[in-house]
């Protein structure tokens, strides 16, 4: 799937400064990493709009956006990390670790919910820091470091939960002080007047905007792209590569924490075996959205489009009422088509230059 992106030969780095006056607006738009994903998202939307009548309603759009947001929130961080040239396979399980930590700290010590939320944030950032520190200090590929973290956290989730609560799920925390305010921040419904959306959708937009600004308008953004493109030369020109990479891992951890809080406050209790496998969905969203598996290229908006494509396809298949036994097959075909449209548009854009 990802091999599609390598065929676009010499696109300018995503974080290049805007001063390139010779090019037309059209050419600059077409050179963006996310343009292919945008075309694919529009195509899939049009497709389901045509074949699935329930898909045309606002509540359906809301469900679809919610599905996209729970993928997209972590995918933003994963995309930045991949642009910075690293992988994180522990992100799916970290989400559950964060949720478990918050629930157990607050419940066991009968504390205000927000204490657990903060402690959990510290735990999550520590996991991100350890991932990043190990990668930059040992030089072991992040793939292996975070694969280890993935297994370690799976065991910790299970072992610690069992040790603390006596079962493998957390107690229900909905009775604790601060639950309602935390629920309002992380898991409430927002009435926009014409439709009701989950608050995660708005947070997702915020995170995508912040990440885009960071990537395209700040020095840090240039550092990220440089560190992922060619680490040695980036270091040679004075980019603090270790700091950038540790920061990126902590960014993913922060977003995983955020989704973990949504998980906790949406369902009030968390089972410790959840989350396994989601790390790949985040990576898929980033790659479908135009990030290179090899680093140095990609965009935050692209990861959002990748999440929309994935969320829209999974929900669209249900809305279309297709035979559920074939669900995964439909999903695979739709994703392949999405990536092919992506590739086609990119090649077209490259030829125009």
């Amino acid at each position, binding site marked *: 799937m990802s091999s599609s992106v390598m065929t676009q030969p010499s696109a300018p780095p995503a974080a290049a400064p805007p001063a390139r006056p010779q090019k037309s607006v059209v050419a600059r738009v077409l050179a963006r990493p996310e343009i292919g994903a945008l075309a694919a998202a529009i195509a899939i939307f049009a497709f389901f709009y045509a074949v699935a009548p329930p898909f045309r309603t606002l509540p359906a759009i809301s469900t679809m956006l919610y599905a996209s947001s729970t993928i997209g929130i972590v995918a933003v961080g994963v995309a930045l990390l991949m642009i910075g040239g690293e992988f994180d396979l522990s992100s799916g399980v970290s989400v559950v670790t964060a949720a478990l930590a918050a629930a157990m700290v607050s419940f066991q010590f009968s504390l205000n919910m927000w204490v657990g939320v903060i402690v959990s944030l510290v735990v999550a950032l520590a996991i991100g820091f350890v991932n990043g520190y190990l990668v930059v200090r040992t030089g072991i590929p992040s793939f292996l470091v975070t694969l280890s973290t993935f297994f370690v956290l799976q065991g910790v989730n299970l072992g610690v939960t069992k040790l603390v609560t006596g079962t493998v799920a957390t107690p229900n925390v909905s009775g604790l002080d601060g639950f309602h305010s935390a629920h309002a921040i992380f898991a409430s419904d927002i009435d926009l007047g014409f439709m009701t959306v989950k608050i995660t959708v708005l947070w997702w937009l915020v995170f995508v905007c912040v990440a885009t600004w960071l990537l395209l308008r700040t020095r840090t953004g240039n550092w990220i792209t440089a560190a992922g493109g060619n680490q040695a030369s980036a270091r040679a020109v004075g980019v603090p590569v270790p700091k950038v990479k540790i920061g990126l891992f902590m960014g993913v951890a922060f977003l995983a924490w955020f989704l973990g809080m949504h998980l906790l406050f*949406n369902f009030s209790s968390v089972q410790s075996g959840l989350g396994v496998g989601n790390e790949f969905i985040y990576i898929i969203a980033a790659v479908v959205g135009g990030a290179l598996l090899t680093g140095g290229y990609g965009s935050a908006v692209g990861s959002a489009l990748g999440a929309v494509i994935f969320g829209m396809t999974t929900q669209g298949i249900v809305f279309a009422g297709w035979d559920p036994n074939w669900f995964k097959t439909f999903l695979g075909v739709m994703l392949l088509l999405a990536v092919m449209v992506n590739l086609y548009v990119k090649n077209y854009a490259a030829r125009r230059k």
Partner: protein
Amino acid sequence: MRNTRRPLQALVAVTVATMALAACSSSGGAKNAGGGNAGGQDFTIAMITHESPGDTFWDKIRAGADQAAKDHGMTLNYSSDPDAGKEATLVQNAVDSKVDGIAVTLAFPDAVGPAAKSAIAGGVPVVAFNSGIGNYQDFGVPMYFGSNEDLAGQTVGRRIAQDGGGKALCVIQEQGQVALETRCAGVAKAFPNTENLNVNGADLPSVQQTIGAKLQQDPSITDVVTLGAPIALGAMQAKADSGSQAKVITFDLNADVAQAIQNGTIAFSVDQQPYVQGYMAVTALWLNLTNGNDIGGGQPVLTGPSIVDAKNIGPIVQYAKNNTR
């Protein structure tokens, strides 16, 4: 400029790791739960299941097994692996370490059954529990403790029909898992207007989103049947999101589901009593080892379906909190 082989290598690496992650899952690990020695003889029992780590359902099976081992003064070695081949290896490991008895789940009869058969041939008593009701006898396993999934499904279907349901949605959280598919088939047998929906049980928000989408797509659904307690909580959220009036019915219990039944937000639960499955499997081995008994007269001993609804939920709320129901 860019070496075009690198993305390909990365892709291969991702694929390999995906396969590795799908295949290996940490085994539950052995746990010794030895207690006082009641019989004067120190028996060691191996319990081997296809548990996916971190599921409250299996935790109850294990709690029951631990309690039985403690009550009868035996040592219990628990291990599990959701992969068929690895579960069979665990059975072989137990035989090699010369345990006195084996309790095993036969969710993958073709893979694990032959290992159980060779254990019996080697003189180790074996009981099957939880899964494999249709297959355990093929491998010469004398006893079985578990629920009849088909019967349980039919019980739900009949109840939906009695309560005047119009259309049922049966939510499968692990596509292609035989026991789950059998439950939904059972529901459809007794209540033909039943449709299946596959969701990703490892991701609760996605469960909620997918059920929500289905409820929006088909407003004629009157009953949502979930096959596990955590999935029922996702269904309740989905129902609230989509403004559907559908009833939520579930298999299995946990503390939250018990509370929801008491509050009336879940209509009823079909409990297969996992604690009893674990307890009985170990106890049956103890009786066999100390007294030569076999239980069930060659027939499966059913631990369910046991219906839990607003009428009998009272004391069960506390049992669910204690992790025994």
